[in-house]
């Protein structure tokens, strides 16, 4: 569903993403993790057509995101870490607007269901300024899911959500995956990634460190079977040992 080959993004001489290749199939949830500045957000922006890649190709549902942008974008939804809303449109007007952009004829029924599911149906006529951070997040999600995207990207999806919202969001992601969507989640919350992702891609300095199923990644970075959780794996994969220094995470304070 998502195929990335040799994706490279340069800013001047700075290499933000370097020769990245991977694929995500329908029904898969891929976790995109890496330290700050690893190139996760840049990668997601290239994958969603927000910024053009310097080199390489990105295909969404078989459509090239640069050459056949309209068809590719019709199939995807991108949820940014901060909900980005039009501050003079009400909740319902947002859905109406998105429905026209993505040509969703039965948006009224779908929109009502989404608002009910996300528990913001009573805020239908509210402006974003009247909503809490979590509610804005929910509205952005409702807008993104209105056209039933086949490919969904999440950038830190749990930011600002309460515990119930987090539970619902996880369930919602898994439900979309079961329905056949290909999902990529960029997050620093490794327990979230471990809980819901079937694949993992670790980035560092714009380069792919490893890409595979959770089991494959665990096997590669474990000295013995079952001796490491994802946090350990992350530190092992991303640490840069200096001369004479042991590899591994910084010690926890006692």
């Amino acid at each position, binding site marked *: 569903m998502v195929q990335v080959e040799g994706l490279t993004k340069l800013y001047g001489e700075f290499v933000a993403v370097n020769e990245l290749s991977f694929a995500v199939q329908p029904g898969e949830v891929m976790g995109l993790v890496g330290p700050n500045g690893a190139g996760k957000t840049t990668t997601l922006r290239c994958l969603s057509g927000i910024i053009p890649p310097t080199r390489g190709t990105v295909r969404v549902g078989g459509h090239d995101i640069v050459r056949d942008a309209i068809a590719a974008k019709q199939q995807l939804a991108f949820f940014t870490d901060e909900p*980005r809303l039009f501050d003079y449109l009400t909740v319902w007007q947002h859905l109406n607007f998105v429905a026209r952009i993505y040509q969703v004829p039965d948006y009224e029924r779908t929109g009502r269901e989404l608002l009910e599911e996300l528990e913001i149906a009573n805020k239908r006529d509210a402006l974003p300024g009247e909503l809490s951070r979590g509610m804005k997040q929910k509205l952005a999600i409702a807008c993104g899911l209105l056209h039933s995207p086949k490919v969904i990207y999440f950038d830190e999806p749990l930011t600002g959500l309460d515990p119930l919202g987090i539970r619902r969001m996880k369930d919602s992601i898994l439900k979309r995956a079961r329905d056949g969507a290909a999902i990529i989640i960029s997050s620093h919350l490794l327990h979230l990634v471990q809980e819901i992702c079937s694949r993992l891609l670790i980035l560092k300095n714009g380069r792919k460190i490893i890409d595979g199923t959770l089991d494959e990644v665990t096997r590669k970075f474990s000295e013995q079977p079952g001796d490491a959780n994802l946090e350990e794996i992350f530190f092992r994969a991303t640490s840069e040992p200096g001369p004479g220094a042991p590899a591994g995470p910084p010690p926890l304070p006692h």
Partner: protein
Amino acid sequence: MIAALIYLQYHSFRNRLVSRFKRLQQPKYLIGAVVGGLYFYFYFFRYLFRGFGGRPMANLAVSPEHLQLFESGGALILFVIVLLAWIIPHERAALTFTEAEVAFLFPAPVSRRTLIHFKLLRSQLRIFFSVLLLTFFSRRFGGNAWIHGFGWWLMLSTLNLHFLGSSFARTMLLDHGISNRLRRLLVFGLALALAGGVWMWAKQTLPALGPADTANPAAMLDYAQRVLTTGPALYLLFSFRLMVRPFFAPDAPAFFDALPPVLLLFLLHYLWVIYSDVAFEEASVEASQKLAARVAAVRAGNWRGMKENQKARRPWFKLTATGPAATALFWKNLIGVGQVFSVRLGITILVVLVIFGFALNGQVHRQGISIVVAFFVAIALVYSLLLGPQVLRLDFRNDLPLADILKTFPLRGWQIALGEILAPVVVLVAFQWLLLLVGAGLLFCLPVKQEALFLAIALGAAFLLPVLDLLLLLIPNAAVLLFPSWIQTGRDSPRGIETTGQRLIFALGQMLVLVLALLPAAAAFVGVFFLLNFTLGPAVAVPAAALAATMVLAAEAGLGVMLLGKLFERFDVTEEQTS
């Protein structure tokens, strides 16, 4: 304790200044600073001190016979400002602190009085810059720069203390159960009674103005001088006159003579503020949060986030789920227009234009209300072209901070561009066509002989205006996509001379592009007009020529929309954010 606060203030100011200078390493700020500096020099600074080759643009140094009138005029303005400070505000006293200041200072062992001192100290910085600008400006009309500077400082500092004191008094009144409405009613009633008293006295004591006097500015000024400098107004404006007297002092001895009463007023205000025992902390915390939210909104590019009490607006038309997708952007921006244009703003514009029309009419000739309306229509039309595209920013200039969202839409660049700029075009054209209709209707009320020609001109204008508006809106939108970090879209809003310079450069650039775009259309207009004028007459030649020019402009606008779309497609959000 105050030493720590002075330290904070000093280093904040110093670091801000250093970062401003460091910013000049970037060419866009350096060029802006040079142009802005030249502008300030030629427009203000060379008038500040004599001997630099600059002469005052007009010598309005106060002559002794007019000194009282100037003083009274200034005193009256101060009186109105103070009166409004007692009528308009409605909130409880809140010293505005940043969130960081609230976080550090409020839990710290800092007394309320020290906080007030800190606030006063900080406001001095703002006052200093205001004094500098005001002195630049007032010095252009003659007088001594130092006297002007100190005069402005005394006035602004005393007013600053008065605003603070009145906010404390307002809070005390609220605490004693006197509501804002009752306070406003009482102050407004008192002001009306005072104005009524002055009016009654003037009517009974002074000789009435004849029709000849109302047309004679000198007679009117003389009458105003007598009203303000004798009778009750003399006592009413006494303390305000004391405040403005140092500013109007013709020389140093006169200035020092006028100084002691103002310093006394200043001291009394200071004591009033310092000894007011009013709790402002809670309201200050709330105010700081609002301030932080506004700053965050503006930095995020959401200028409308500054507006409080934003209301949901109904869409102008029902948007169906199918059809051209770009219509959704047009529909969205039309809703946004409702947020920008309130009824209050509409009434204000109308009042200003009518007053302007009356003022112009008085200088031309008097032929009744129709002429006034005709002037109003003409002025409004010109202003709609000049200011309309600047005021109606519901396009890329507003949505650029959300460019990453727009870029995820399955639309081509030109569709997004067209959808973005269509709303301001439609609003402007509707307004202008309405004005043209009013203008055409006036032809039947005015003693105009060439109705057909005037109607032809109106028809020609009706053809031209939509494409002209489109073109006028395309230019700033293209500029914002080409040079997003030059045109302030709200992501960051640096201020200073360099920003003024940048704006000047852009204004000139936009004008140049517009002139270049208009040249082919003007050539088409002239060609068709001369071709038809001799055979069919101007009544046909004007609209036909306008139609030809419209077609040229429409072709240019069409190309412009395609170009704007390409620019948007190439616009790299991340590069702009990281640059």
